[in-house]
């Protein structure tokens, strides 16, 4: 029904943005991983539980050598080599599986950020956009964990507005000289390689910069409210000399490197948010069973059960979105021949395919983590506010996930802007609704488009409402379809979560729609959605309590 052409011949359901048209074919979910894949995920999960979780205090104190040795151990098991093609020494696993493995490794925020940056945005620009020579020069060191990597885009005066970056790259006889300051650089303390973005006469350009190059220094650690075990510091470039062959992709096209690394980065950040959310739910369930007030475990109280159920339902929705997006990403990447000379162009298009899903997935998953961390702390009462229990750390660590890899505001604006500029909103005008949530979304899009047309992008509130509606639509749809595919107790649990999330999202959808209609002179339009009256709360809470946390891995 959609007008978007599809050069890859994918089924409708596997194209980016297909969900907006109500397409759900071939939706991928974690239940579809085979036994080998599950073994890999379990290995990652047990590595994280046995090697990382017991040393969190020492990690947060940045004990000398500890984080590096954990990262190296993780790399020795192959965790950083999941996605790189076999041609360049990687394992060539699907991005969905690599992401599930990352999620399993991500129970703690500091380790997750450190490892996630190293195995993700510090590496993917070289894989996707690097020449064979650059790949050969750097990937063996990065994949094996012998070296750590970092990604340096942000600057003191250039954060969300990343392309306003001021770092200069001047061409000289023996390469480029880079001058400027990069701010908030994760892994700066440990990294041997930095993907640096700087401005040449042609525009923003990406480089691989080694720590050992003359003119490169790293500043002192920032004092952060959380994620204390991760390294965040400035990278100072004082006429740093970078050989010409370390230029990535095309001079002046560095924004494409930056944004496509971030597309994949956001897709993965969702997994890195679900890791700690899983840990939060685990502690919440355990504590609720053991803490007694008024003569009963607090897990028997309706409001505590509701918290557990809502967290689990939102988690289920976030997880469903994430791996559905994984299916789309994998399909797009499987079309690319890594040996072809134009692979960088093909990879770029593949990474763009999931831009919308990656952004809403990042926003949704980081907000899922916010809910889970907050409610887990609330369930712990006053004890949660102390450092004796692990939830305080999860709460502090969680906060930054809504800020980095594009703030959630920037991602919301990005979604609406892209849907406008790519003409998708316009295509939605004559799309048929598949259910009542979809119907409400389509009616809101029409109202906004009829009143404002392309100008809607200058109204940030409208943009955010439409993005949020798209996000909730993706969440509701992905959870519902996944749940109907699943069997056994996982299917039952999934259907309860999907139903509860549908109800929660329904409230948000109705509120957003009412606002859009109100602002577009259609205040009377009906917005109410049916409700199941919270009937699934108890079943979900029971499953979470019985499994000591979120029951599916």
């Amino acid at each position, binding site marked *: 029904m959609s007008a978007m052409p599809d050069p890859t011949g994918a089924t409708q359901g596997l194209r980016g943005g297909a969900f907006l048209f109500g397409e759900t074919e071939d939706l991928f979910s974690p239940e579809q991983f085979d*036994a*080998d894949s599950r*073994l*890999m995920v379990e*290995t990652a999960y*047990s*590595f994280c539980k046995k090697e990382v979780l017991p040393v969190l205090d020492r990690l947060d104190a940045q004990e000398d050598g500890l984080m590096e040795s954990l990262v190296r151990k993780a790399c*020795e*098991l*192959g*965790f950083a*080599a*999941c996605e790189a093609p076999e041609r360049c020494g990687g*394992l060539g*696993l699907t991005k969905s599986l690599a992401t599930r*493995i990352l999620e399993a490794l991500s129970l703690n925020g500091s380790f997750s950020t450190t490892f996630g940056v190293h195995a993700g945005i510090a590496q993917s620009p070289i894989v996707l956009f690097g020449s064979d020579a650059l790949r050969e020069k750097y990937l063996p060191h990065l994949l094996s964990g012998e070296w750590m990597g970092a990604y340096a885009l942000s600057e003191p005066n250039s954060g969300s507005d990343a392309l306003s970056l001021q770092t200069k790259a001047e061409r000289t006889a023996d390469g480029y000289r880079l001058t400027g300051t990069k701010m908030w650089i994760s892994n700066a303390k440990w990294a041997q390689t930095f993907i640096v973005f700087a401005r040449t006469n042609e525009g923003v350009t990406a480089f691989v910069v080694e720590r050992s190059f003359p003119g490169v220094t790293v500043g002192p650690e920032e004092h952060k409210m959380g994620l204390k075990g991760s390294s965040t510091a400035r990278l100072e470039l004082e006429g740093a000399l970078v050989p010409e062959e370390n230029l990535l992709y095309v001079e002046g096209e560095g924004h494409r490197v930056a944004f496509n690394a971030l597309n994949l980065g956001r897709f993965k950040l969702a997994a890195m948010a679900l890791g700690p959310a899983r840990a939060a739910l685990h502690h919440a369930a355990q504590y609720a069973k053991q803490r007694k007030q008024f003569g009963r475990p607090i897990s028997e109280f309706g409001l505590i059960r509701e918290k557990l159920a809502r967290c689990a339902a939102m988690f289920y929705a976030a997880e469903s979105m994430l791996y559905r997006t994984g299916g789309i990403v994998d399909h797009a990447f499987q079309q690319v021949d890594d040996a072809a000379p134009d692979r960088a162009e093909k990879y770029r298009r593949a990474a763009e395919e999931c831009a919308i899903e990656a952004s809403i997935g990042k926003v949704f998953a980081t907000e899922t983590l916010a809910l889970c961390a907050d409610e887990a702390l609330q369930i712990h009462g006053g004890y949660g506010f102390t450092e004796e229990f692990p939830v305080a750390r999860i709460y502090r660590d969680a906060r930054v996930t809504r800020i980095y890899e594009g703030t959630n505001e920037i991602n919301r604006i990005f979604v609406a802007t892209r849907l406008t500029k790519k003409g998708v909103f316009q295509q939605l005008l004559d799309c048929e609704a598949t259910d009542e949530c979809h119907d409400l979304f389509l009616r809101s899009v029409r109202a906004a488009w009829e009143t404002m047309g392309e100008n809607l992008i200058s109204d940030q509130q409208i943009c955010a409402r439409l993005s949020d509606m798209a996000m909730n639509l993706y969440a509701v749809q992905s959870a519902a379809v996944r749940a109907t595919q699943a069997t*056994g*107790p*996982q299917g039952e649990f999934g259907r309860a979560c999907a139903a509860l999330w549908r109800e929660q999202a329904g409230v948000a959808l109705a509120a957003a729609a009412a606002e859009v209609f109100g602002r577009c002179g259609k205040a009377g339009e009906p917005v109410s959605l049916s409700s199941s009256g919270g009937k699934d709360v108890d079943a979900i809470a029971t499953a979470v309590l*019985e*499994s000591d946390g979120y029951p599916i891995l």
Partner: protein
Amino acid sequence: MKILVPVKRVPDPYAKVSVLPDGSGLDTTAIKFEINPFDEIAVEEAVRISEQREAEVVVVSIGKPECEEQLRKALAIGAHRGILVETEANLDSLGVAKILKKVFEKESPDLVIMGKQAIDDDANQAGQMLAALLDLPQMTFAAKVELLDGKARVTRETDAGQETLEAPMPCIITTDLRLNEPRYVALPGIIKARSKPIEKIPLADLGVEPECRVHTLKLRPPAPRQAGRRVESVDELIAALKEKGVLNG
């Protein structure tokens, strides 16, 4: 040399198991299955030996087609090839030992390393029975294994202290928890395991039809634990124990 390691598919030891309503067995729909932890230690030990000297590690499992998952994991740890003896039959320890005897005769390994017991029924019998059926030496509950010229030496931890045994090979060794800490299976190992061979042998082809002499009549979950009570002093504790008839007087 060749080392034979039997691996059993058992419910994840950390999974909460529940009994089917009619008491005929466990509800396995939601449970994850694993290699029996003692068997995983045996696989690890055999693989370590093979990393130090020329040795082929052959893993064998008996049961349904799903046991292939556990064999694949053993292959991912580093075993070289697998054998799956296919059967849907209920087996007791003697039945398992009889089947393993056939596999032993087919493979002629120099050494069998196996778990001292499986964490599902905790029988702790198959290794000993296999040794008896084959009339081979056995060294059980190994905490340390060393291979000497044509002999194996096992250190075992007993109530009286450490005991060291030696036996000529071939012999049967069963593993205790302390023998080693199994490695994390590295991802490249899992990928490599995909192409390692697993030979599937229908039980009938082995020429043995073990009769199961242990019958499970009914399973029932243990009675739920009664809530405890906190006592304030030793005197109160003693009084409470007397009241319950645990202490006399």
